[in-house]
Each structure stands twice: as C-alpha cells, then as structure tokens.
C-alpha cells in the first residue's frame, strides 16, 4: 500500500464521530500556517517603520531601516510556502495571467506585487540611494559595481535631489500604510469569506489578522533590534525598547479585545456550529489556543508589558523582559495562525465529528520545510544588513 494511503487509514481509524468521507485528509497543512504568519510579520514590521516616518516618532529611528529590511526579507519568501503547497505548482503563474475576478485568492499575486515592487522596494531604494551612491564611490572592485547597479544609475546626490528622495520616500510610506493594511487584511479575508466554515467565517477575521500581524511584526523588529545590537556589540537603547514596548502593549490590548469579542459573539449567539466548536476549543485546540496563544502569547506578555509601563528601574531586567515578551508574542501569533488554519479543518462540515492532523517531519509539506521557510528570511535579512547596513548610512540633516 502507498504510504500516503497508509497515513490516511491511520487518520480514518482515529476519526471521532462522523466526518464526510472526503474530509479525512487536511487540505491545508503547516505551510499554510506559515504563510499568514510570514505576511503578518511583513505587514507588522512595515507599519512599525511607518510610525517612525509618518508620525515622526524620533525615538524609533534606530529600528526604522531594520524594520523595512525585515519586512523585505520576509516578503521575498512569503509566496514560497504557498506555491510549494500547490498540487500543481508549475501552473502557479495562471493565477497572475488569468485571475478569476470573484476569487479572493486570485488577487494575491497583485496585492503581493504591489506591496513588493511599489511600496517596499521603492521605499528602501529612496532611503538608501544617497548612501549607495556614496558607497559605490568609496568601494573598490565588485562591490563598487553592485552599489552602482543598485542605484539604477541615478547618481545625483545634490541636496535638491536628496531632498526629493526623502519627499518621494515619504509619499510611498503614506501609500504603504494602507497597502500594509490591505496586504494582511486581505489574508484574513481569504479565511473570513469562507461561509462553509463557521470557525473562519467572520467579518472580524481581516481585522483580527491585521492586529495580530502588527503585534507579531512589532515583536519581531524588537527582537531583531536586540539581537543585531548584541552581535554588533552595541548598547541596546532601553528607551527604544520602551517606545516599541508601549506600541506593542496597546496593539496587543486591541488584538486581545477583538479576538475576545469574536469568541464572546460566538458563544452568545451559539449558532448551529456552536457545539462542535465548543468541543474543538476544549479538546483538540486546548493546548494551542488556551495555553500557547492565550496564556503564553497574550496574557503573560500583556501583564509583563503593563508592568513595564511603570517599572523603570534595572535596565538589564527590562531588556530581558522585552526579549522574552517578544519571543512569547511570536509564539502566540504563530499559535493563532495554527488555530485558525488547522483548527478550522479539524472538525467536519457535518458538525458531527473530527478528523486529526499529524504533521510529518520531511516532505514538501513537513515541519522541516516549514522551518526552512521561516529561517530563510533570517538569512536574507543577515545578507541585506550586510549589503545595506543602516548604521553606515549617510547621515542627513532634517
């Protein structure tokens, strides 16, 4: 017997209650958990960067370029888990060439390209152009040419042109904020618009996705800032952490409120799917929802961040707390993605039973592959930070 069928027979033997016979196998596995997690990090990191720029939060300056490069690193990988989960990946381009206008998924390619090409790349280019021109003049050999190519031949660094760079960059940031909202709100809509699935189908889904995206992106930038400073043997500015921490605190409160509202609404309305969802959250999702997402990823960080709003002594303690909080929040948001994507497929649409899911280690849809797509952006980020070090940029007077 084929190993795939063997695996299905095992799941069938463990099914609880009644599930439709076509529902034994989960359609979307761990890669589709990773996908909204990654796009969330992109949107969140970008929104944090925009805060600095549009709302002129000076204190966040050291994290500005880091946030942009983090967003870019993850965005470059965002499509990979999607494409590799397709059964016909060689046809993926069809989604761009012949998009089906009524499909939420069909818009992905365009939203993605808009965000990558128009928003992120352009903004980073305007930001770095001046520095790249200077670097290409200073460097020798290959790197001279690399920077020269990256400037796209625009080597004018007169104050007037540089001022224009800044102006255009600003405009793109302003366009970028709603774009980031669209990018991730849209990912939420992919799930929220499936009326067949009561666990997904809620108009709050895009908003919940958006706020959890901001929470995860802000945490990631905080974490990356700390790690980079540590590697560069620079002092981590606790005031920067305090500022990011404050945003994280407020967004986390909003996120928690929205998700709580969603659940309260479900419980109070108690529609036909209520019984099966109650069994789902108290059974198969108990650990990932209440412990991992709720306690570890939300409650503990919330209490800690609240405490840090008042506690201003012992810089070392505060830094350690921020470090731990950022990791916990990332675990929490990853669990949230898991609970949505996997949780939504564990119960039958007959509302009468459950299938089960065991993620394999190897294979295109396995844990190792998912881990690879999560680690690869970190490698890309390291490369980008080496190529475009924010700390070596040409200082510009405001």
């Amino acid at each position, binding site marked *: 017997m084929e190993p795939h069928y063997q695996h299905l027979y095992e799941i069938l033997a463990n099914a609880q209650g009644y599930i439709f*016979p076509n529902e034994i196998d989960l359609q979307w596995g761990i890669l589709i958990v990773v996908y909204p997690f990654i796009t969330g990090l992109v949107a969140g990191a970008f929104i944090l960067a925009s805060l600095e720029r549009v709302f002129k939060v000076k204190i966040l300056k050291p994290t500005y370029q880091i946030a942009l490069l983090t967003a870019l690193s993850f965005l470059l990988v965002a499509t990979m888990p999607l494409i590799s989960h397709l059964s016909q990946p060689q046809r993926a381009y069809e989604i761009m060439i012949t998009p089906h206008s009524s499909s939420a998924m069909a818009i992905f390619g365009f939203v993605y390209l808009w965000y990558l090409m128009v928003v992120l790349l352009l903004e980073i280019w305007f930001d770095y152009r001046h520095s790249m021109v200077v670097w290409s003049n200073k460097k020798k050999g290959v790197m001279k040419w690399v920077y020269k190519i990256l400037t796209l031949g625009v080597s004018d660094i007169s104050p007037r042109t540089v001022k224009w760079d800044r102006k255009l960059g600003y405009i793109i940031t302003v366009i970028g904020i709603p774009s980031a909202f669209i990018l991730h709100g849209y990912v939420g809509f992919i799930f929220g618009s499936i009326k067949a699935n009561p666990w997904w189908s809620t108009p709050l889904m895009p908003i919940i996705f958006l706020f959890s995206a901001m929470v995860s992106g802000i945490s990631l930038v905080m974490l990356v800032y700390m790690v980079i400073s540590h590697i560069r043997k620079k002092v981590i500015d606790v005031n920067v952490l305090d500022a990011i921490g404050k945003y994280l605190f407020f967004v986390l409160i909003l996120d928690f409120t929205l998700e709580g509202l969603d659940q309260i609404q479900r419980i109070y309305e108690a529609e036909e799917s209520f019984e099966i969802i109650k069994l789902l959250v108290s059974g198969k999702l108990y650990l990932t929802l209440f412990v991992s997402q709720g306690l570890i990823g939300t409650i503990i960080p919330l209490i800690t961040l609240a405490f840090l709003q008042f506690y201003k002594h012992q810089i070392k303690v505060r830094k350690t707390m921020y470090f731990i909080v950022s990791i916990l929040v990332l675990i929490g948001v990853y669990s949230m993605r898991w609970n949505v994507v996997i949780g939504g497929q564990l119960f039958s649409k007959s509302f009468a039973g459950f299938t089960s899911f065991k993620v394999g280690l190897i294979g295109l849809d396995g844990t190792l592959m998912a881990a690879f797509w999560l680690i690869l952006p970190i490698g890309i980020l390291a490369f980008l930070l080496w190529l475009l070090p924010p700390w070596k940029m040409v200082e510009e007077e405001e």
Partner: protein
Amino acid sequence: MSQSTSAMGNEKIKSSRRKFLKSAATLAGATIGYSWLKSSQVLLFAAEPKDESLPWYGIVIDIEKCIGCGSCAKACKKENDVPIEPFFFRTWIEQYTVKNDGSVNIVSPNGGIDGFEQTVPDEDIFKSFFVPKMCNHCSKSPCIQVCPVGATYDSPEGVVLIDEKYCIGCRYCVQACPYGCRFIHPVKKVANKCTLCYHRLKKNLAPACMEVCPTGARMYGNLRDKESELVKFLKEHTTQVLRPNLNTGAKLYYNALSSEVR
C-alpha cells in the same frame, strides 16, 4: 455680413463643443457607473441559465426510497475513475439513526459501498434512514466563486465542472464547499467532484448513480421544462435543499429531508 456669419459660426462651434463635452461626460459617467456596477457583481456571484435551448439541470433525491444498497457510490467510482480507497467519493450514502434519547448516530463506512449494518439495538432506535450525498450543483457555488484561476466553472446546463488541465491544486474550492463534495484526486493531483456524469448526459444517458439505483431514489431533469418528471415531482412533494441558510443556490432537492441532516 461676413462678421455676423463668423459670429454665428463661432456660436455653432461653441454649442457643438458643449454638446460634445456633455455627451462625453455622460459617456464617461456611464462607463464608470457601469464598471462600478460590474465590479460589484464580482462580489455578488451567481450563475444564470443563458442558452434557452439547453436544459438547466436539477436533481431530486427521495430519501424515502433509498435502501442504502450502495450501488450508486460503487457505480460512480467505476464510471468516473475515482480511486477505490475510502477517502475519495463523488457520491456516498450516510446512514442516520436517531436514538430514543435524541442523540444521532451517523455512519458511512466506505461511503456505503459495502452496504450498512445497524449497530444500534432496535429498541433504542427512534428512526433511521439513508441519505445519499453528491454535488449539489449550486447556481451560486462557493467553489466556483473562490477558484483563483477559474478552473472550475458552470456548464451552460448548470453543471459544475472542473478543467483538470487548468486547476492549480490550491484546494480553496475543497474548503469552500459546505457539503464536503470535493477532494484532490490522489493521482491526477487536481480537484475532483461529481460531474453529474456530464459525458453521459451529453449522450442522453442518465448519470451512472441514477442508472443503477434499484429504487429510483435519484432523478435528474430539466428545471426549465415545466412538463418534466423532475418539475412534476417538485410540485407534488415538499422538498428541501441542504444548508439553505448558506444560500448556495443548491439544485439538489431532497424529499423527506429530516432536520438532523447536514
């Protein structure tokens, strides 16, 4: 004289320019308005019968007639090259047993192909019945709506079909179907589902499941033809579609559908 002529000429030009601008503005407005309406249709999704000369198919399943023999599911697998493993079905039969305590036992071992055995003791049974399931060939199909490339579509006769050479295997349609009627074909690696035996319909043959049904529990017919057996049946019986709250425009009507069925 010449002056006045030229003045009149100017007047003419001015008024014709005004007219032109007016009609251009109307045209532009209409175009924008139309495209806006058109784009709002992107959100409002429904298939409509277009070609009057073609049938618009509907299906009736009479639960009172089904004996749970499983011939339909078996014939379907044979006819349509569906893998024999018990995870892939274009049609299957469910056995519902409502117990005296109000609890409901639902089973469908191997989709009912091998028949059923009642495991609930007779004295505990309030009622029991079989429900054959298949694609509802919805006119507002959630599966068609979500397909990112348009690989799944409505035939002019209202049959929901899949272009196997075009499907990218994203599985969004499987998620979107509220009835669990779709699966990914393990060999072809694309979405698969009931086609109402479209290849047979085109030759005026009944779908395989209906051909073999010993009790005539399943029928299909032209919903547009008010004289058809199907429409007559719908007129004489109280029928219901599955999950009517989801407004999928299902064209599979059940006779004697009990409220336990989903």
